[in-house]
């Protein structure tokens, strides 16, 4: 099923790119339209040969797919085709991945204590205030939060650096990425907290909690060991599902904090109409979605044995 989905995505993307765009024009520029001049006709034929553009679409798709799965992402549509798309991706992808990992770790670090704190005193003033807060964070668009945080923390208070410098050391770059990661983490944390809090409150009303408490287990220990552990499964599920949404957020946030990751790469490629690059990035993100869905399915079958048999 997931393989079928990836094939569909790649066929749709490849087809759309080739039918709606004009690859020949992207490679050669205005020369591609000049079919009367024998010199440009020669150029056109050479380019068609080089990029297999004279084959029918399905064959080109199959050729491209064969290259793609073996790790050859093709060449960029520019005069010399350098650097290969693969190099570009291997330069950009780790940055986006690091941003996502940092955001998710931060979100979990914020959400779990937050949820435990509010779930242990439901409907108190603190809890009500936190419900309003999480609603605000869930509603705010990532680009709006990014601009506001950049203005307040980087420009007004100068706590965080303004630029991402690719040549700095890993720790310096991680610090430069901290504010973008916080931007992604805050709404994510609000989503996780809301779910985990509801789940914890339900769990705390279960009989086994009462049993544990009457056997003399401390409040703290019940909350952490018994309630949190059984609620963690649903937390992990929403964690995985939300990663998909975070990818989209990361692409946008990269623009605002000027991090040269996949998001910047796709925008630059779109401007140049460089579709081997767009195609490669689209496929990588689609692949990430499919993997995430598989992980979610796996988690479901871990929680609920009935899913495993069906």
């Amino acid at each position, binding site marked *: 099923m997931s393989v079928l989905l990836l094939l569909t995505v790649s066929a749709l993307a490849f087809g759309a790119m080739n039918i709606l*765009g004009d690859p020949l024009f992207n490679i050669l520029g205005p020369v591609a339209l000049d079919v009367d001049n024998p010199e440009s006709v020669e150029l056109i034929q050479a380019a068609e040969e080089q990029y297999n553009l004279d084959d029918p679409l399905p064959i080109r798709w199959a050729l491209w797919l064969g290259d793609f799965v073996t790790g050859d992402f093709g060449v960029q549509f520019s005069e010399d085709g350098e650097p290969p798309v693969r190099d570009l991706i291997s330069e950009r992808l780790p940055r986006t991945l690091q941003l996502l990992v940092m955001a998710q770790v931060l979100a979990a670090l914020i959400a779990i204590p937050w949820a435990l704190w509010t779930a242990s005193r*439901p409907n108190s003033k603190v809890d009500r205030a936190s419900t309003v807060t999480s609603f605000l964070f869930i509603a705010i668009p990532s680009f709006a939060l990014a601009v506001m945080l950049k203005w307040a923390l980087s420009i007004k208070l100068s706590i965080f650096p303004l630029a991402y410098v690719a040549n700095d050391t890993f720790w310096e770059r991680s610090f430069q990425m901290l504010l973008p990661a916080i931007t992604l983490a805050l709404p994510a944390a609000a989503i996780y907290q809301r779910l985990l809090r509801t789940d914890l409150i339900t769990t705390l009303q279960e009989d086994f909690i009462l049993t544990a408490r009457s056997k003399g287990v401390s409040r703290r220990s019940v909350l952490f060991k018994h309630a949190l552990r059984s609620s963690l499964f649903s937390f992990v599920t929403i964690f995985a599902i939300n990663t998909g949404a975070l990818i989209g957020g990361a692409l946008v946030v990269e*623009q605002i904090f000027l991090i040269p990751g996949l998001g910047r790469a796709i925008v630059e490629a779109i401007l140049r109409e460089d579709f081997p690059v767009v195609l490669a990035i689209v496929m990588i993100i689609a692949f990430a979605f499919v993997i995430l869905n598989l992980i979610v399915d796996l988690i479901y079958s871990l929680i609920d044995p009935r899913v495993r048999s069906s």
Partner: protein
Amino acid sequence: MNDPKDIDHVHLDEQAQSLVPLIAGASTFHDEGDTETATKRRLGIGFWIAIGWIATIVTAAVLAPWLPIKDPDANLIQPGERPPYSPSSEFWFGSDQDARDMFSRTIWGARISLTVGFVAIAFGMVVGGSMGMMAGYFRRRWDAVVSFIFLVLLSFPALILAILITSLMDRTLFTISFVLGVLSVAPVGRVARATTISFADREFVLAAKSLGAKHPRIIVRELLPNVVIPMAALALLGMAIAIVAEGSLAFLGLSVEKGATWGKLILTGAGTRSLEDAPWISMAPIIVLFLTVLALNFAGDRLRDYFDVKETAL
């Protein structure tokens, strides 16, 4: 059932005593939930404030050409001063680097942003809603086909589809709304299908059937009124999502090409230089956009609680 009020009367040792607040805390939550059910049939003042804000923004956007506001594209250079101008009685939200009035630009931006949001969700409602209702009513083969289409649409990363199509097409108001509309078909359709199924076997539908009503009449007269009401809540949430999506596309350089949208206004003010010199250029549209999205979300949430929609797919 472990009613904590019974536990109070049982002799407990000291450690278990401290359990009571824990459980009682949890049960207060539960009790409040019950009283909430009793008073649930009220939408509350917050809902009407949210609706009021939405109505104000929509009215301002619709009436923008006739409102006594400045021309959004005019360069209103003030003698002896260099733009951007900070907010003042002359420029309520300040002006941008080209001395254009941000207040009127924000209102004009609302025209495009709200249109995108409205057209997108209207498309989703009409196409997704009717597909979902047909699937839920006729079941069998229809259901299998429609459910498969929804599945494919849902498993396709929405953002990727949006990037893909908008990067290849002319980015007019129509195409952007259309792309976002297609993306909303599956989430809306699933809710329509689920709601229709829950009503399709009810007595009043059976009664209509046994009185000899044809399928179209049953769908339109009996089922539609029941499906439309919970869908209204979804429409508000969906519109918020579409408005935010337009903003995200703007930051990828893929929003509507002509005219100002909220997303594009924020983008122009989001550079480091203009945030240092003139934060109001991006803050004014951010605040208006945020309040609008917040109001749509809040009103949608309240409506959903009010009509108690179980399925929340959006």
